[in-house]
């Protein structure tokens, strides 16, 4: 019997989401007027559905594992085992991007994101990655701001852009 902790955790996640939605439904008004169907009807259906599906998944996970799964071993999937640094570098890049975009602006945040992701995929040339990332982000910035009139934050470079007449 194969029993997988992630499967159990994911099943519980669905179940807990269902319970949460059901509780949230109780806080919504039921008054729907004419049709007698208020804004709490659909949430009740969805909450109930999530609970049923979560329980079903949990049952499968506990009784021999989820059905019709491919082999879980990395080699059988043509993969290597979980590479934590790679996952963390990509995640860090996205967090840095979130933190920087409002202050430092689109171009700097994008350059940092690009370099972090490249590092996560095993690149050993940070200087080149940062330079390429900035160039690509700058290109995208100019295209969207000048050509498509989509506003993106200039951030710390706003003064430079202003001086250059952008």
């Amino acid at each position: 019997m194969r029993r997988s902790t992630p499967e159990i955790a994911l099943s519980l996640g669905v179940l807990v989401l269902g319970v949460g939605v059901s509780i949230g439904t109780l806080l919504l008004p039921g008054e729907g007027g004419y049709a007698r169907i208020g804004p709490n009807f659909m949430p009740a259906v969805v909450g109930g559905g999530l609970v049923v599906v979560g329980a079903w998944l949990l049952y499968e996970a506990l009784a021999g594992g989820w059905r019709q799964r491919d082999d879980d071993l990395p080699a059988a999937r043509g993969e290597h085992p979980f590479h934590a640094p790679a996952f963390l570098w990509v995640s860090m890049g996205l967090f840095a991007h979130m933190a920087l975009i409002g202050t430092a602006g689109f171009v700097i945040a994008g350059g940092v994101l690009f370099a972090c992701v490249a590092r996560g995929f095993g690149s050993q040339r940070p200087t080149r990655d940062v330079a390429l990332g900035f160039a690509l982000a700058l290109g995208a910035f100019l295209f969207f701001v000048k050509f498509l009139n989509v506003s993106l934050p200039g951030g710390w470079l706003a003064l430079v852009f202003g001086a250059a007449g952008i």
Partner: protein
Amino acid sequence: MGELLASLGTGFGVALQPANLLWGFIGVTLGTFVGVLPGVGPALTVAMLLPLTVKLDPTGALIMFAGIYYGAMFGGSTTTILLNTPGESASIATALEGNRMAKAGRAGPALATSAVGSFVAGTIATLLLTLLAPLVVEAALKFGPAEYFALMVFAFTTVSAVLGASTVRGLAALFVGLFLGLIGIDSQTGQTRFAFGVPELLDGVDVVVLAVGLFAVGETLYVAAYSSRMPETLEKLKGSMWMSRDDWRRSAPAWLRATFIGFPFGSIPAGGAEIPTFLSYALEKKLAKHPEEFGNGAIEGVAGPEAANNAAATGTLVPLLTLGIPTSATAAILLSAFQNYGIQPGPLLFQTQGALVWGLIASLYVGNVILLVLNLPLIGIWVRVLAIPRPLLYGGILLFATLGAYSLHQSWVDLATLYVFGLLGFAMRRWDIPVAPAIIGLILGPLAETQFRRALAISEGDASVFFTQPISATLLALAVAAVLGPWLWRRFRSARA
């Protein structure tokens, strides 16, 4: 018939305007360029390129999207054949034979049969769409809210339960999508639901953010964690680029058979191109004079699935345009592109915006031609795109993926949402949970809720309307059968054994 030709004539009048032709060209080129990138399937391509069209008029934008869609599908085939990394499940069958052909030095004919096959299947399927759409529209005009609701429930169950390995995992994805669709302001009463006081959530979850999060961020996290350290072999283009007489003789029947397998699967609300590609593969293997070639690079095994994939993709436009019901992830994103312009596809659209709809359909014919004349000559460029080192490739993908999400509200909250969806996409990919039902649930859930309430408002709260009207009752019965059928069938079989 005369009316149909007149409509189509109007459509070509729109599609062949120089500006729209230009958007078609740009769409096909961009779609192919992005679609070639490994790990980027058609749905993600369309989602990532959506921000580019904000300033276009609806007709031009939708024509560009048709081009992007077709280009992305062809680009994906190129990657599958040369790199053996199918960007979507519908390309797996192509990978079986196409990559073997490339390894044997026959990448040229494999790409050619894929391109010509896509053209043949795309054109025939567009013709079928042209003929079928007015008939469906005529029937759909008689549909009331109860029928629409039943149709949507049917689409939910087929998309999540019938396709894929596991009914329950498909339903889990569907309900998560339906939950995401609840977030924001209820369109009927103005009541805020599940927004937790976050202003960015009041507009609801954007389909593009979900799609880009699941596909781009999730995929990047997944590839980084599980295959960024695997060696990668890109097959070279060598030998003849063109198909021999024998290749033509073997490909042509496969294209035609596959078209008629793929189109129905796409057009009934049981979308997804995965099943028809495998059916076509199995059929070609069975009919082949040299079945032993299968597994070693049989050209029929590329020609069939590629044509089936394209025909099914065109087929999904039937329910999308005539009923407003998306049956694949890509169709769901196209629907959100329509909604961005305040356009709701459906039978009324054919009456109110005839020029737009028929212009779009006509541009599908044009797009197929552009694809054929553009792609084979430019294949050398697309191959070079494939040679971009992975660290730079995925850096670029995430740079553009985040741009689309950020431009919604200029807020980091959307980027945080994107990351959460990325984690979700990672988990779904890792533990074999399908993604399409979640995307379809998000966009179709609110529409189903609206139809449900309308139906009950008309019947003054009497829920029996769903079961007393024949169309609605049949569709709901089919929906129940789709969920319970496989389970009952297994019980029945094990009881007999």
